[in-house]
């Protein structure tokens, strides 16, 4: 099986997993869940990190560096803001 086909397998199975992962969500958690999933989509940071690995300021490197900055904001801010929303729930039990 070629690499492309493996990627396609991975993609398809991941899609099934994502569809099945979430079924019933209480309305209270709609926003935090969206926020947490949003932070997870910052996974693109992993791609960005592989693109700015030299010192010179070529356009491709600059684009990669900017991608790192934006993805990091998404990841760090995203998980933090989700935690902030969820932290307020705990005080109520």
């Amino acid at each position, binding site marked *: 099986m070629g690499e492309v086909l493996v*990627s396609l397998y*991975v*993609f398809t199975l991941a*899609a099934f997993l*994502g*569809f099945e*992962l*979430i079924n*019933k*969500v*209480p309305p*209270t*958690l*709609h*926003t935090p*869940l*969206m926020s*947490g*999933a*949003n*932070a*997870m*989509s*910052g*996974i*693109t*940071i*992993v*791609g*960005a*990190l*592989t*693109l*700015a690995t030299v*010192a010179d300021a*070529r*356009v*491709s*490197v600059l*684009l990669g*560096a*900017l*991608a*790192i*900055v*934006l993805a*990091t*904001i998404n990841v*760090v801010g*995203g*998980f933090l*803001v*989700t*935690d902030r929303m*969820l932290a*307020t*729930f705990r*005080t*109520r*039990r």
Partner: protein
Amino acid sequence: MNADLTALVALVSIALFVIGLKRLSRIRTARGGNALMAGGMLLAVLLTLVEQGRVDWRWIVGGLTVGSAIGVLVVVRAQATQMPEIVARFNGLGGASSALVALSLFWAAVVEPERADTAVVALGLLAALTGVLGIVIGVTTLSGSILAELKLRGTVGDGRIPARSLVMAAALVTALGAGWVAVASADAATATLGMAGVVVASLVVGVVLVVPIGGADMPVVISLLNSFSGLAAAAAGFALSNALLIIAGTVVGAAGLILTQIMCVAMNRSLLNVMIGGFAAGVEADTSDYVSITSSDAEEAAMVMEIAETVVIVPGYGLAQARAQTAAYDVAKALQQLGVDVRFAIHPVAGRMPGHMNVVLAEAEVPYDLLYEMDRINQDLPQTDVVIVVGANDVVNPAAHTQPSSPIAGMPILDVASARRVFVIKRSLSPGYAGIKNELFDMANTTMLFGDAKAVLDDLAVELQKAAKR
């Protein structure tokens, strides 16, 4: 690091994501789930850094530092009412980042080398095409999210685009066509121009997508855009042939789509209906003037409330906006001192986001057992003596039941009109997000308490505390 070992660690990271996301969808385990996902992300980042080996760290360290600082700063400075906007903004940045990853890849492969090759030759057909797809989806997410944030803030209203589906189709075709030029052209200048076309056309797609959608539907749109940014990451993963990106991105893309669907069901709308711009496309709402508005002040209202047996408080966006959650809880506590049974009724989409009210009330430390969801409280409302509506509008509008032509027809509402007495705390008679008149204000058993939610509630609390001392 050994390649097999790397792949195994990546698998651990994926497991953390999946288990975390699952736990995030249950109230009891939600916070831990979020922490697991954050752990998975940290692991993925560390793994990638270790895997790089000896590289120049300046851009990486700089980027991580600047990004973390901004992320923390934005969250720390945000108020509870702004959370939904923040989610929209972060989401847009995530999409932009995926697009930048693909652009960087393209630049390195096509524009920068001396000997010119097409992107298809340099990167391979699959990588080139998925790269373009990543840019299209990522940039669409960016412009759509920015617009969604502005709409949530109320900076931008709902607009109409003539022949919207045609404009949308044209922008999409342009984006993909320009994408083909970009990846199939060996001339760096032509290819760059093609890429510019992709970016511009994709910006247009995002705007056209969001412009006509009603502000009240923004949660659904943001959830959908969230699904998009996951797919953009997955596309970038294909372009880089990075399994971690493909899996995590696709899982978010699919789960985001399901969450979007769940939200639509909670609002009794179909996704198609929302995307067409249900509210904006609806019949011109009846904006004729109100005929029999009664208004009163806090002192008189308190006199009614102190002899009530049951009071239900219905918070809405106005409460969040006025930061009146503590004042609302003060009123509840004063009523409890008077022996009144007080409950808070939470509409699933009150505020600007599902669950918005829970977050805001939790900030004032309102006990969890005082909060009742719509389905549980609706049956009790006919036996309720007093309902206090604080800055909520569409979610208590009886037009949802009585007027089939209303833009909110069929939306589940809190049936407060069936209570014996209703007090509505509101600045004015201006319409809510759906932009329509609210019959409730005109009803005989409704009394308006005009003013800032916090000021009125503070006055009410003072009056009730006085009554408790008597």
